[in-house]
C-alpha cells in the first residue's frame, strides 16, 4: 500500500515539475520576446510578435494557476535556482536572426512537448489552439529566411539548447522535424548570470513593496 502511495506521489511530483518547466519556459520566452515590443525590424511584425509574447505569458499564467493559488507569487517570488525553465529561453538574444531562430525552434519543440502532455494538462488543448498561429508565424519566417546565412547559423548555434526543451525520448522527433542532426543537449538545470540579471530586473518593482502588496 505504501509503495503505491509513494509511487503515486512521485508521479504527481514529476508531473508538477514538468508543468512548472512548461510554465517557466512560457513565462521566460514571453518575457524575452516582449523585449522586442517597439524595436522589431518592421512595425507590422512588431505588433504580431508582441501578441505572441503576450500569449506565451498567458499560457504561463494558466499553468501556474493549476499549480498554485497565487500565480503571481509562483511566477515572481522564487529564487533564480528554483525556476525550471530550459536554457534556450533564458538566453538574452539581442538580434533578430537569433530571436526568430529561437522562436522557430521553440515552437517545434513546444508542439512535441504539449502533445505528450495532452492527457495531464487540462489547458493543453486551449494552449495548442493559440500555438497554431505561433507555428504559422514561425514557419513563415523560417521559409523566408532559410537561405539567409545569419538565420541558419543562429539556428545551428541554438540547436543544442532547443534539444534541452524536450525530454530525451522526444529529441529524435525534434531532430526529424527541424532537419538537424541530434547533438548533445544543453539540459535544464542551468541558471547563469544572464538569468540572474533577468530575474533581478523582472522582480525589482515587485520587491520594492512588502509581499502581498497590491499593484
Amino acid at each position, binding site marked *: 500500500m505504501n509503495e503505491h502511495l509513494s509511487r503515486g506521489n512521485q508521479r504527481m511530483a514529476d508531473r508538477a515539475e514538468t508543468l512548472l518547466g512548461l510554465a517557466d519556459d512560457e513565462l521566460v520566452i514571453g518575457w524575452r520576446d516582449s*523585449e522586442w515590443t*517597439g524595436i522589431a525590424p518592421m512595425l507590422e511584425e512588431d505588433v504580431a510578435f508582441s501578441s505572441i509574447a503576450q500569449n506565451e*505569458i498567458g499560457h504561463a*499564467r494558466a499553468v501556474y494557476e493549476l499549480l498554485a493559488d497565487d500565480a503571481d507569487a509562483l511566477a*515572481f517570488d522564487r529564487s533564480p535556482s528554483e525556476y525550471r525553465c530550459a536554457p534556450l529561453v533564458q538566453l538574452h538574444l539581442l538580434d533578430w536572426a537569433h530571436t526568430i531562430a529561437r522562436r522557430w525552434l521553440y515552437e517545434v519543440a513546444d508542439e512535441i512537448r504539449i502533445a505528450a502532455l495532452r492527457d495531464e494538462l487540462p489547458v493543453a488543448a486551449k494552449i495548442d489552439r493559440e500555438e497554431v498561429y505561433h507555428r504559422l508565424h514561425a514557419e513563415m519566417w523560417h521559409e523566408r529566411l532559410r537561405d*539567409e546565412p545569419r538565420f541558419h547559423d543562429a539556428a545551428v548555434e541554438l540547436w543544442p539548447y532547443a534539444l534541452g526543451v524536450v525530454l530525451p525520448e522526444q529529441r529524435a522527433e525534434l531532430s526529424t522535424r527541424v532537419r538537424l542532426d541530434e547533438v548533445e543537449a544543453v539540459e535544464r538545470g542551468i541558471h547563469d548570470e544572464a538569468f540572474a540579471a533577468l530575474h533581478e530586473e523582472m522582480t525589482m518593482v515587485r520587491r520594492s513593496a512588502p509581499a502581498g502588496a497590491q*499593484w
Partner: protein
Amino acid sequence: MGDEQAFLEYVQGGGQVEATDWMPDEYRAKLIKFIEMHGNSELMGVLPEREWILRAPTLQRKLALTAKVQDEVGHAQLIYRVVEDLGKPRERCLADLVDGKAKFHNVFHYPTRTWGDVGVIAWLVDAAAIISQKALLKCSYAPYARIMKKICWEESFHILHGRDVILAMVTGTPEQFELVQEALNRWWGPLMQFHGNPIPKDEDPMYVWRIKSQGNEEARQQFLEGYVPQIWELGLAVPDPSLRRSDDGTWEYTEPDWNELKHVVTGHGPKTEERLAFRRRFLEQEQWVHDAVLAA
C-alpha cells in the same frame, strides 16, 4: 484643378480630402509634417515605457502594459502608411527621425524613473494625447481622420489601465502613494506644455487648413477640466500653487516654460539623444531583415 482659395474655402466649410484628390502643395507639406510628427511620437513613446514591461510587478500588469505599447506601435504603422500615401516613404521618415531632423512630442524626451511614472503616463499623458486625437477625428484629410477612430478606441483602454495602476498604488502602501505623487511632480511641467503654446486658432496654419480642429489652449483647458478634479479627488497634489478654476470655468495656472518646450522638441531633451541612438542602432542592425523580407 489648382485653386488654392477654393480649396481653403472647401476645407473650412467642412469638406473632406482623400489621398487621390488634388491639394495645394502647402497643405500637403503641412499635413505630412504634422502626421509624421504624430507617427514619430508613437514610435518614440514606446521607449520610455518598454523598460517597465520587463519590470511589471504582476502578470496582469505585464500583459496590460505590453498591450498598451503594442497599440502604440500599431498606431505608428497606421500613421506612417497615411504619410506614405501622401508621398513620403516610411524609410525616409525613420531616417529623418533618427538623424534628428524630425520632431516628436515633448513628453517622450523625458526619463521614466519608477513604476509611478508608468501609471502617470498611461493615465495623464495618454489623456492629454486623446484630447488632441479626438479633435483630429474632424481632420479635413479623411484618411488621417479615419485612422484616428481606431487610435482613439485603443487609447481608451490605456487610460483605463493607467487609472487602475494609479488607484492600486494610491490605495496601497504610503510608499506607493509617494511614488505616484513624485512621478506627478515630475510630469506636470511637460504635461502642461504638451498641447503647445497658446497661439490664436486663426494664426495656426494647422487650424486654418482644418488639419487641427481645436486650438492649443482649448485642448489644454479640456485636459485641466477633465483631469485636475480626478487628480485632486485621489488626494494627490498638483505641483502648481497657482492652479485654480476661475468662476467662468477657465483654469488659471502658472505659465508653462515655453523655452523648455522649444528646447526639448528641437532635440535637446534629457533623453533625446540616447533614445534616438537606440532606435538608430536597431534600425541599422536589422536592415538586413528589411532587405530579406520586403525585397520582392
